[in-house]
């Protein structure tokens, strides 16, 4: 394979130049300086010598690279040049993580400009990509400082400029999950920067950093981020493509020249998901869902295979629904993805993103608990069991209603919500004026929650009767009857929600989501309850199979696969025996 050839060359070169003695150079350099005046030619020579010295220093630094890492970088570069997507995927997914575990668990990868660039002959696109990985690793394992953040931002600018270069659009094709990770990381660093900035202003009084922030308002500004995302969408004409797919037409017809390139298509699609996230972070939930209107979540597109993208999408979609009081839809979104996660648990254990997936799923369970408390719904059994395990006590407290439930709502919301940020730079001069966006959104959310505090108590009473007089119920609840009337209206109101049936995410029709329905006639309350009879058919089937599995364990059978093999063998034997018998008869 080519890499070995290249590696050999480098090794060879280093061996040869390793003997090069720097000391030999110095007298020459000092000679020049000692002279009174110096002419152009000598100056040029001096510069060349200096360049060579620098290069050799870099070679030495590169020589200190572990061989495995050096080979990896070269191979990586090679794959990129050859546009070998499959191997590139392997490099990215497996080798990079393995080497990180082995060599760079707590230290940064080799410096992109000092070490890696010379190795690949300063191939700018590769260096930029490598730098992206370098900073992603830095953010994940170490604490980036302000300088790192600025540098990472600059790198992203270079990368996006490279992609958007219309005169010579790159032929490069990245694996889909890498493309997703780039967009994801870009927005994550944007978010992280905003939080870092507000933390500096609030706590530390590092004047130097604040001064730098003041001087660079454009770095990591919302406009830049939005610009990037929208540009991708426009360049790839993603919305038109999605619409064409929905109508059953060929998307390439409307894609235009750029839109048909796989690179733009991938980035275009993921930018839509990116916008969903950015809008939610800024508190604009309706726009977030509206941006998604071209995407049909129920369809399995090739992008749906990028697990990270699926989790993020469903998390944000569910969250937006929750903030729009469409709890039924939120519950559906969370249940769907949590079911998916629990079913594919095996795959994620070895992925580098395992931690983030776990954290996300815990957040979604918390949000699910909130939604179920606000809108009691039957959940899928496995989800319900896990929910009770993780958030059982909190769920019970929220469902009891009343004053004691409020802190639980606040706690879960603060844990599970996205890291809200405010749009622009904070007030540097009056730090006290900067209010934490999380507190703001939490407050508005809690205003809604407080209005449903009475519901659980009402429900418990209403379930017991089929008709009831308002005066009587008011006495039970120790409330003024007129206020109770209002409370009943609210109860009825809350049981009606907009639920999605088809079309874009914002569409939906008003349905009754509660099993308890009431109607007031003067002072009389009529109550009707919709009981869902237990579906015992399904229950019996599931338990029968479980019973057989238990039976197996008791009888100490082999694991399934061997069992199957045994069966197959036995069947084959039997067939042969039968054939013999038939033959002989």
């Amino acid at each position, binding site marked *: 394979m080519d890499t070995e050839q290249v590696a050999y060359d480098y090794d060879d070169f280093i061996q040869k130049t390793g003997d090069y003695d720097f000391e030999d150079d110095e007298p020459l350099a000092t000679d020049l300086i000692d002279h009174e005046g110096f002419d152009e030619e000598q100056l040029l020579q001096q510069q060349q010598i200096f360049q060579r010295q620098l290069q050799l220093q870099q070679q030495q630094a590169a020589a200190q690279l572990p061989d495995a890492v050096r080979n990896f970088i070269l191979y990586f570069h090679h794959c990129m040049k050859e546009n070998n997507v499959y191997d590139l995927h392997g490099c990215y997914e497996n080798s990079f993580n393995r080497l990180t575990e082995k060599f760079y668990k707590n230290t940064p990868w080799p410096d992109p400009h000092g070490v890696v660039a010379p190795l690949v002959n300063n191939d700018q696109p590769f260096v930029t990509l490598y730098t992206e990985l370098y900073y992603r690793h830095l953010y994940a394992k170490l604490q980036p400082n302000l300088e790192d953040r600025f540098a990472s931002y600059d790198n992203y600018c270079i990368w996006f400029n490279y992609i958007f270069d219309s005169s010579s659009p790159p032929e490069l094709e990245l694996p889909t999950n890498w493309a997703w990770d780039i967009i994801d990381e870009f927005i994550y660093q944007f978010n992280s920067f905003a939080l870092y900035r507000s933390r500096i202003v609030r706590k530390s009084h590092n004047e130097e950093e604040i001064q730098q922030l003041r001087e660079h308002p454009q770095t990591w500004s919302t406009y830049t981020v939005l610009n990037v995302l929208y540009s991708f969408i426009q360049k790839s004409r993603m919305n038109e493509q999605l619409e064409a797919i929905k109508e059953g037409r060929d998307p390439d017809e409307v894609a235009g020249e750029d839109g048909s390139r796989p690179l733009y298509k991938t980035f275009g699609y993921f930018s839509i998901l990116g916008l969903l996230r950015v809008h939610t972070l800024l508190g604009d*939930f309706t*726009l977030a*869902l509206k941006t998604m209107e071209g995407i049909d979540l129920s369809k399995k597109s090739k992008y749906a295979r990028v697990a990270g993208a699926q989790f993020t999408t469903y998390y944000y979609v569910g969250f937006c629904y929750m903030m729009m009081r469409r709890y039924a839809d939120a519950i559906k979104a969370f249940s769907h993805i949590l079911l998916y996660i629990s079913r594919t648990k095996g795959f994620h254990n070895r992925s580098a993103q395992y931690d983030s997936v776990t954290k996300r799923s815990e957040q979604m369970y918390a949000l699910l608990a909130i939604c179920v408390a606000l809108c009691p719904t039957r959940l899928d059994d496995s989800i319900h069991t896990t929910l009770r395990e993780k958030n059982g006590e909190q769920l019970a407290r929220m469902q009891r209603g009343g004053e004691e439930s409020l802190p639980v709502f606040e706690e879960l919301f603060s844990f599970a919500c996205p890291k809200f940020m405010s749009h622009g730079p904070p007030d540097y001069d009056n730090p006290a004026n900067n209010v934490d966006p999380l507190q703001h959104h939490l407050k508005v959310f809690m205003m809604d929650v407080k209005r449903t505090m009475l519901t659980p108590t009402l429900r418990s009473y209403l379930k017991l009767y089929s008709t009831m007089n308002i005066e009587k119920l008011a006495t039970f609840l120790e409330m003024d009857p007129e206020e109770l009337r209002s409370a009943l209206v*609210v109860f009825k109101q809350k049981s009606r929600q907009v639920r999605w049936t088809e079309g874009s995410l914002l569409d939906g029709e008003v349905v009754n989501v509660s099993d308890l329905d009431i109607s007031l006639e003067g002072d009389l309350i*009529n109550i009707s309850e919709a009981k869902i009879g237990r*579906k015992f058919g399904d229950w019996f089937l599931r338990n029968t199979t479980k019973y*057989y599995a238990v039976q197996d364990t008791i009888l100490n059978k082999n694991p399934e696969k061997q069992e199957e093999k045994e*069966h197959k063998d036995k069947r084959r034997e039997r067939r042969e025996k039968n054939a013999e018998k038939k033959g002989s008869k």
Partner: protein
Amino acid sequence: MPSLSGSTPLSRPPEIETILTTLSRYNPETTTVLQEYVVTQCASGSYDLMANLALLKLYQFNPELMRDETVLNILAKSLTVFPEPDFTLALHLLPASLLHQYSSAASTPNSTIPLPPAADTDDQLSNSVHRLTYLNSLLELAAFPSFWRILSSDVDEEYADLVADVTGFEDAIRRGITKSITLSMRSLRVETALSWWNFTNKEAVEQWVEEEMPGWVIEGDSIVSKDEGDAITAATSTVQPATGKIKFEQFSRVIRRVYENELLHH
């Protein structure tokens, strides 16, 4: 049907539609167009959620362009479509400092209705936002008599000022209240209806019922629905059939297992 957040209202002019569907929604210069649109909505009684939220977003991005009057009008307008969550959605897009000092006043004992917000802050806009938020709370809690009382309060005329720009505000609120009534009731005593709609005499109630509530009539001292459609009585308690259908495929695993069991034991 209530206005769904994403749908396009018929009253939306084409240039607004263009703004909302393209990147001009981020152009600071469009604030003037959208502001005028808010004025139009207030005057004509139409309502456009997406346009109003887009304007609030522009204010978020360009705080120096924010106009107090417009913000308050947007909030007042979104009160008229209660119980839609539009008011809450608008609050999320406002600068965090506006609500920072709002405290949902503790209710008096034995009452679920909160008290008006406590002492005023220094910022006039904050105070106004607090007041509108309080009005929203009252509407959400269906505390309609309190709502009208606060709105027409002599002590604090600020409340009335805040909604003065919105023509037909009171009738719009009444329609919202009517929706709540038709949703949850089949009959209501006239004296309760008076306080809920803020009418002073029975004739006004009769007129309102006739104009706004088809299928409802006055019978004696109550207004009554004649529509038998959504009557809820004990008889309508449903119990979904317990069995339901079970597809044959669901038996496949059990059958397979039984078959394999047979093979193993023979």
